[in-house]
């Protein structure tokens, strides 16, 4: 029943809380890597005719920045909270499949390492360092990704890395769906789930439906590159537009895969710090579900410039404008939650309110893309870069930081420093607006995205310099955040069970929670179990000491061994060495076999 310590216990862990922390630290590391790549991009663009990096390196930088931030930083940061918080919020002792959960993490780590190894392994492919990282953009448009136009291993790393990461996401997706549907505590009806858990559920459905599409698209590309098929080869009668459809069929739900968890965090943070129930909880939940459904009907708005015809353009313009409705509903519900509340201006609340403000800007610029004539002027310019960063940085990152400041005491037992937190917030808030708002103007003035330099005659030098200053301000804010994390280990105020007065079940147990989570599985009788309302009093927290022994399953090496098989398998086509494929397959099969037959009672 006591928690094991030491490196082995972390490598073999199947505890959702430890896996959540592993996700957090790994995703944070990748976030820093993606941030450094962004700084290089901004330094290069700080002035016209920049010479800091070559065009080839620049292509790799923006490709890896996008790929890293989306697949290796934002998604897994969300997964960190899914892992740590969802079982606690639903009153469970763990996820439905703890070993599958460990497998998901190790696959994510190895997939991320494989992708990033591409920065350094150029000499193994008879190329220099910084020469074989993916360089086709995070969207990897065909037919530039075909062997004919990208003969090096750059795109191979991207294809294989994303395939591996997709396996991680799918495994986690099924795991969390089963967990949320089947592992809820007695009385935890669906409409009593915390909003964050609801948005997690919607996100997982998007993951398990959207990732197969990109998997198919990538498999076609893999076959084209390695086995000479012609899925995207125009000369052979195929159309590269197929890739765009497959990619954006995945890509737009992916936008909501990234934003819905942040919306869930904000929907939990705002009620706590305004001491009011979430305004219109059912409507917020239904809006989240509707956003998930509607995200399947908007993908071609990424393709207006293709020339799909006026009918298709009109249909997708209409669906894109319509999806703003449930999003707007959520925004009004959040504002109404704050209205008249007993507001406490904590750092978490600052980030949650910052999320609302920045996401409104990102949402509005998104609506401007929904109009095909306007979109044709904006496509492939910095206006789109501004939009995506207001959504993902102003939206997802701000929302996730709200979650970090809110749940950090629960996850570590230490409070983060509020003063440092607010300095972090304001620097990041000012920095992001300096960095990304000028990009609207840069784009409308005609600067295309993905170009490594520009002429002074374009007249966007000053705006680009401001943007670069903003990027470094963001970097400074992140540095302060890291200091805050580090400082909290020794100087952080010890956190009680419930430092904020939260309404949900995670606050009913110690900080950090014991390995078994709940000494007694709680019985839930209402949606705000820890609050006293006019209809009910607060629940009684579970006793600190379990009344009877609780069995906690031990760790296992096999999920990690099985996961290791995947990057080894990927090395086979990369190195064009058949026996490596057999080693990878053997590791995977042996890992899964031993995992399946390892007794649960260890």
């Amino acid at each position, binding site marked *: 029943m006591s928690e094991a310590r030491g490196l082995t216990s972390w490598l073999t862990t199947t505890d959702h809380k430890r896996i959540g922390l592993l996700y957090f630290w790994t995703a944070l590391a990748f976030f820093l890597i993606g941030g450094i790549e962004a700084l290089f991009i901004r330094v290069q663009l700080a002035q016209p005719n920049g010479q800091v990096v070559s065009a080839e390196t620049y292509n790799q930088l923006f490709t890896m920045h996008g790929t890293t931030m989306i697949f290796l930083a934002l998604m897994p940061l969300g997964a960190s909270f899914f892992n740590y918080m969802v079982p606690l919020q639903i009153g469970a002792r763990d996820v439905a499949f703890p070993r599958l959960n460990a497998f998901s993490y190790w696959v994510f780590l190895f997939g991320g390492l494989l992708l990033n190894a591409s920065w350094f392994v150029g000499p193994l492919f008879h190329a220099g360092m910084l020469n074989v990282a993916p360089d086709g953009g995070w969207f990897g448009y065909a037919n530039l990704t075909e062997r004919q136009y990208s003969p090096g291993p750059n795109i191979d790393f991207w294809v294989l890395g994303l395939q591996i990461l997709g396996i991680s996401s799918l495994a986690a997706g099924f795991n969390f*769906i089963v967990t949320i*549907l*089947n*592992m*809820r*505590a*007695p009385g*935890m*009806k669906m409409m009593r789930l915390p909003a964050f858990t609801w948005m997690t559920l919607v996100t997982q*459905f998007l993951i*398990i*439906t959207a990732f197969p599409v990109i998997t198919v698209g990538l498999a076609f590309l893999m076959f084209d590159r390695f086995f000479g098929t012609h899925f995207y080869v125009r000369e052979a009668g195929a159309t590269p537009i197929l890739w765009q*459809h497959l990619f954006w*069929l995945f890509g737009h739900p992916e936008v909501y895969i990234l934003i819905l968890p942040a919306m869930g965090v904000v929907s939990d943070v705002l009620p706590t710090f305004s001491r009011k129930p979430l305004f219109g909880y059912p409507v917020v939940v239904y809006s989240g579900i509707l956003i998930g*459904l509607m995200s*399947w*009907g908007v993908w*071609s708005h990424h393709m207006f410039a293709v*020339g*799909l*015809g*006026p*009918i*298709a353009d009109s249909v997708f313009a209409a669906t894109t404008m319509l999806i703003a409705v449930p999003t707007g509903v959520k925004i009004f519900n959040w504002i109404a939650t704050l209205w008249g509340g007993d507001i406490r201006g904590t750092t978490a609340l600052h980030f949650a309110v910052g999320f609302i403000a920045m996401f409104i800007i990102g949402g509005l610029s998104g609506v401007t893309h929904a109009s095909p004539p306007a979109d044709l002027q904006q496509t492939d310019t910095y206006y789109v870069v501004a939009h995506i960063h207001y959504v993902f940085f102003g939206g997802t990152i701000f929302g996730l930081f709200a979650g970090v400041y809110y749940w950090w005491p629960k996850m570590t037992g230490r409070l983060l420093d509020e003063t440092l937190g607010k300095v972090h917030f304001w620097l990041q808030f000012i920095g992001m607006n300096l960095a990304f708002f000028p990009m609207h103007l840069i784009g409308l003035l005609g600067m295309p995205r993905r170009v490594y330099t520009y002429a002074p005659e374009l007249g966007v030098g000053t705006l680009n310099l401001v943007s670069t200053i903003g990027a470094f301000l963001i970097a400074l804010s992140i540095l302060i955040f890291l200091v805050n994390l580090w400082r909290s280990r020794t100087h952080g105020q010890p956190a009680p069970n419930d430092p904020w007065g939260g309404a949900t079940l995670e606050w009913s147990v110690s900080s950090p929670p014991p390995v078994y989570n709940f000494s007694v599985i709680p019985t839930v009788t209402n949606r705000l179990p820890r609050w006293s309302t006019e209809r009910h009093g607060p629940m009684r927290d579970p006793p600190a000491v379990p009344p009877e022994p609780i069995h906690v399953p031990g760790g296992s090496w096999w999920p990690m061994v099985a996961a290791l098989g995947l990057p080894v398998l990927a090395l086979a086509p990369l190195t064009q060495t058949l026996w490596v494929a057999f080693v990878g397959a053997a590791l995977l099969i042996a890992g899964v076999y031993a995992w399946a037959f390892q007794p649960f009672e260890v």
Partner: protein
Amino acid sequence: MSAEREGTERHAHPTVGVYLRVGAALVILTVLEVGVFYVPAFHVVLVPVLLVLSSAKFTLVVMFYMHLKDDNKVFTFLLGGPLVIAVGVMVALLFLFLGALTLRGAAGAG
């Protein structure tokens, strides 16, 4: 344990005989699928016939071997919802790929 799960556990599994009969039905449907290919009269409606037969097989598999028939209705919804999305997306893609030229031509723009 959630209310839904309690409800689920009350359902009994089908008997082995039911599984065998469903298996036999699947074999017969497969034979029909292969058979219609060789009957010239069916060639004009081959695709719709094969789609109907495949749908019947799919329905039998998910009802019995995936236990949806006896399980909580929420699981039928969980399968059916994404299936509807997938079919919708496929139809949209068919329109976009096969209809784009016609539509564009009719509108005189591109």
